[in-house]
């Protein structure tokens, strides 16, 4: 097991593995998103109170889940990088940050679009909304800090520490709707109880959530490959691949 881990951590092996699985993941991801969007926007019934407006959850909820999931990936990779100095973990954290920020922005903006007609406001300083906004700032701060220091190694280390400190925000986001009086409704799905969402609306949502996860994975793998090539540009395996014109 440890040997396998070690082999995967070699940038060359990871590059090869990512190269093989990416096309498959891309096809599955496209299929999930297509079916999920069709079933969510066309097949799923309208909501008894919100009418058609509720359909924004098929983008909003998966984006919000991804914003937290990617943050946990970055934090996990940062811990591995700080403890074992594993270069691959650092690259994964580096390429994930812009995607995490994008999903956070998407969650905030779709929520705002829904909030105006339903709640009657674009924005409210509610605990859920504010803690999600702090997450966006954490992502931006992470990316800024990485590039603010002169040496890439020092930047990576400082950013990794920031990522770990920021983890406290994740349970705050999740439990904000229970701990405080908020305008945002409590969780419909991620709770220890039967989901408060009808099965015909839940299935497309789960398809979309899985599609979003794969979308992230596909993009993360391809960006990781680019960074690996950049960092390993002077090694023999990259050069020989370059000569064969197979990258």
């Amino acid at each position, binding site marked *: 097991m440890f040997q396998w881990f070690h082999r995967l951590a070699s940038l060359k092996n990871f590059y090869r593995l990512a190269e093989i699985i990416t096309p498959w993941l891309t096809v599955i991801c496209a299929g999930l998103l297509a079916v999920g969007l069709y079933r969510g926007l066309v097949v799923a*019934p309208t909501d008894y*109170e919100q009418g058609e407006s509720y359909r924004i959850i098929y983008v909003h909820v998966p984006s919000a889940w991804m914003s937290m999931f990617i943050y946990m990936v970055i934090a996990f990779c940062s811990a591995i990088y700080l403890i074992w100095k594993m270069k691959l973990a650092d690259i994964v954290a580096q390429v994930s940050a812009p995607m995490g920020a994008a999903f956070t922005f998407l969650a905030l903006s779709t929520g705002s679009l829904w909030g105006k007609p*339903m709640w009657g406001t674009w924005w409210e300083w509610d605990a859920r909304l504010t803690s999600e906004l702090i997450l966006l700032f954490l992502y931006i701060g992470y990316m800024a800090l990485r590039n603010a220091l002169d040496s890439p190694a020092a930047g990576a280390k400082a950013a990794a520490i920031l990522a770990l400190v920021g983890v406290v925000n994740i349970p705050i986001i999740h439990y904000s709707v229970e701990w405080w009086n908020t305008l945002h409704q409590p969780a419909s799905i991620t709770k220890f109880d039967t989901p*408060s969402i009808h099965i015909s609306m839940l299935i497309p949502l789960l398809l979309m959530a899985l599609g979003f996860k794969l979308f992230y994975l596909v993009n993360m793998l391809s960006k990781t490959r680019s960074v690996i090539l950049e960092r390993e540009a002077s090694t023999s395996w990259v050069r020989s691949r370059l000569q064969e014109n197979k990258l």
Partner: protein
Amino acid sequence: MVAVAGLAVGLFLNVFKSNIQLFYSPSEVADGLVPDGAEFKVGGLVAANSVARQGDGLTVEFLLTDNANTIPIRYTGILPDLFREGQGTVSVGKLNRDGVFVASKVLAKHDENYMPPEVADALEKAKEKGAYGGDTVIMQ
């Protein structure tokens, strides 16, 4: 360093704990726990059969309840789509001398239940017959 930063965040949150609540309940208003003369937010359920529109068509008066205490609210403006009797709502404004909360903004609070209209109807019927326990459709 991580521990120190974590502690700082913890202290920060502790200080802001009292300010992070979005709204006060009608009971807290009745107990006089709300800021005097300043704008604040109050949240609860719109009491059944309490919404009354005034002659100008824009001014609405309704009662806000938390099933223990009730306060009257007056608002002039456009109400959000989800505003209705029995639904959760949050209002921003001030208490006047007569104890009426004059709202400058009324927001609707949505619950976590999502279902097709037919299912909602069926649940409603079952509830009327008394066959349904009724803990999924608590409007809050």
